[in-house]
């Protein structure tokens, strides 16, 4: 069952087509990556799901029902451009934003205390936001996004501005939230984090969906028949005209080979075993980063 279904969304600004018949289907309880270069239309799509703007045409369904104003209480949104009231105290700010999402005040306060403790921010609760370090402000912003326990969380570049330790904590929190039942849509350029935590992705380029599906499937679809071959005694492997060519690479221990068109893996392994002492062979799948760049640059 999908939690979000965006069907054929079109949005135009001042003669510029920001979304061109975009579809997005995010299953319940999934961590879903929304990828795309700058200006591709990700933020517009996110704003439509948030009801900040309306599509010119197309529909948005949440849990099988058309998206309504009341649904926004069930969405947590962390925008890419972080923003908090600089002059307002941390606690007042969190409670205000939680109440705007429809949380009763006493509950907002209890939840806030819990989250502040979790992020080691309790002693900062009565300080103004401008007195906090950037990393702490990011944490406060994260708390304001998740405090009302929304079923849908939208993170736009959640890791930017975090140091590796805090980014790791954030990642754990996101996975924890998913495990508790939230559906997570997250937009990023950080392909390493996509590989690590996203189950499915949609890649938007020039206002259109150009790639979508399971991360593992996409990697399979984009594999380039590359293998890392290890042989005994650290011998160098020579290119075989019919079966494979050796690709120069410093990154791997062993040799990187690319199967020739029409050659099959079984024949290659047999040949390698006959001519060398084969100790290992591993398929080299493309990284999401490569797939992203190739897709955006139109190489696929």
């Amino acid at each position: 069952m999908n939690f979000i279904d965006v069907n054929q969304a079109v949005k135009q600004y001042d003669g510029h087509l920001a979304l061109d018949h975009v579809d997005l289907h995010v299953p319940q309880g999934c961590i879903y990556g929304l990828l795309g270069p700058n200006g591709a239309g990700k933020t517009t799509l996110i704003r439509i799901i948030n009801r900040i703007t309306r599509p010119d045409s197309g529909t948005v369904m949440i849990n099988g029902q058309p998206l309504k104003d009341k649904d926004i209480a069930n969405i947590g949104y962390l925008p890419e451009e972080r923003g908090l009231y600089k002059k307002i105290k941390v606690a007042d700010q969190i409670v205000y934003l939680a109440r705007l999402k429809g949380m009763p005040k006493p509950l907002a306060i209890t939840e806030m205390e819990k989250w502040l403790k979790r992020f080691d921010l309790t002693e900062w609760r009565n300080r103004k936001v401008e007195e906090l370090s950037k990393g702490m402000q990011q944490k406060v912003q994260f708390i304001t996004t998740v405090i009302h326990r929304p079923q849908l969380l939208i993170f736009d570049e959640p890791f930017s501005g975090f140091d590796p330790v805090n980014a790791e904590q954030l990642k754990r929190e996101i996975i924890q939230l998913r495990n508790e039942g939230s559906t997570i849509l997250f937009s990023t350029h950080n392909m390493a984090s996509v590989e690590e935590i996203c189950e499915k992705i949609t890649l938007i380029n020039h206002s259109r969906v150009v790639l979508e599906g399971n991360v593992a499937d996409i990697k399979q679809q984009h594999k380039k028949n590359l293998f890392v071959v290890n042989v005994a005694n650290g011998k160098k492997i020579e290119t075989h005209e019919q079966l494979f060519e050796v690709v120069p690479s410093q990154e791997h221990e062993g040799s990187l080979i690319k199967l020739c068109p029409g050659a099959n893996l079984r024949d290659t392994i047999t040949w390698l075993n006959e001519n060398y002492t084969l100790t290992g062979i591993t398929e080299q799948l493309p990284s999401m980063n490569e797939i992203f760049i190739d897709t955006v640059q139109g190489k696929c």
Partner: protein
Amino acid sequence: MNKLKLIIQHEYMTMVGKKSFIIMTLLIPFLILIVGSIPVLMAYINSSADTSVTRIAVIDESGNYGNAFKNSPNYRFMIMQGDKAFNAHEFYKNAGESIDAVIVIPADVLDNQQATIYSENTIDQGTISMLTRCLNDTLARAKIASFNDPDLESKIKQSQVNAEVKSIKWDEKGDEQEQSAQFASILGMVLSFFIYTFVLSYGAMIMNSVVEEKTNRIVEVIVSSCKPMELMMGKIIGVGLVGLTQFAIWAVLLGIGYIVLGLVAGGTIAATNPEAITAGMNLSGGTDMASGALHDIMTALASINWLSLLGNFVLYFIGGYLLYASLFAGFGSAVDQASDSSQFTLPIIIIMMVALYAGIACIENPSGPMAVWCSIIPFTSPVVMMVRLPFDVPWWQLLLSIVLLYATALGCIWISSRIYRTGILLYGKKRSFKEVLRWIK
């Protein structure tokens, strides 16, 4: 509706809790009291501290007018007979420090009406005025005497008239009530200024708040929790309430300050020299006239229909504020920095200033065509109608004006909310007026 209430509460509490608000709220009445009491204080200091004595030699060539000048605590006169051959400069030199100035009254002063004062120091204007007054009085008496008519003086006195046109207002039953046009004009102008200042300063405050939320980027989080219209209206209402709170505090503080200052200053001044104070405050006449004016003000106060005046004031106040504040919010959303906002605020400020000038011009004739038109046109009516309110305004004009004002205010809120919902989400380049108007569609 709950969210609107929450936003209003948030805006109100945030603004009221600001140090700048607290300082301004407490400081302004204090400054007003200081500025207001400066003339009184100055007169007081002048009268109590001025112990200097100016010594003037009077060279009376005819021998008839030396008695024009009488010694006073600050002036000493030395009357001397002299003629054309008298060398005033030599006399002054010889006298050394015992004389500050020499006034020469020529023999033909009655015809030429001119005397001359000499000194090596600059003679202050106060001394010259006093000398001129004394000389004029004496010369006038001499002229009267030259007609050889013993009754002439009393005839002239009797012929001096100081007539006034008293303004009486009939109520529906024909009962008479005295009214003071002057007081009504001042009252109207005060109310007018009040609305003008409030709308401009709080409008600018709303604009800053909108720009700040946009610059902080928090606006995107907020509008993912509520409608842009709710945020805008919450801001307008919240800030409006802050303004009302500030004015209420000012009114109370000024009232208390006025009473306290009145008691303290009244006691001190009365014990010293009340005439110097009234002179210092440029009030001609003595305490009789002052108490007369007080009586006039009291009657004028009683002649005004306060209930209707205040009721209408509140209506125009709210209408005018909503109209302009929404425009400030709308156009504020179109800019990224407050410094870029002038192209949008300038037209609003010009309209407000036209309204203020129209208001000032209408004091002379609060029922004239300009006053009537400007008090009906919604953009000027909140300011101009204040000038007319203390005088009677036909009910149909009042009704038309209020209906138009509120209809326009609603229109402006609608237009501004359209601009606002687009503007707050657009960053980067500077927007032209034309582009912003396109967002209304």
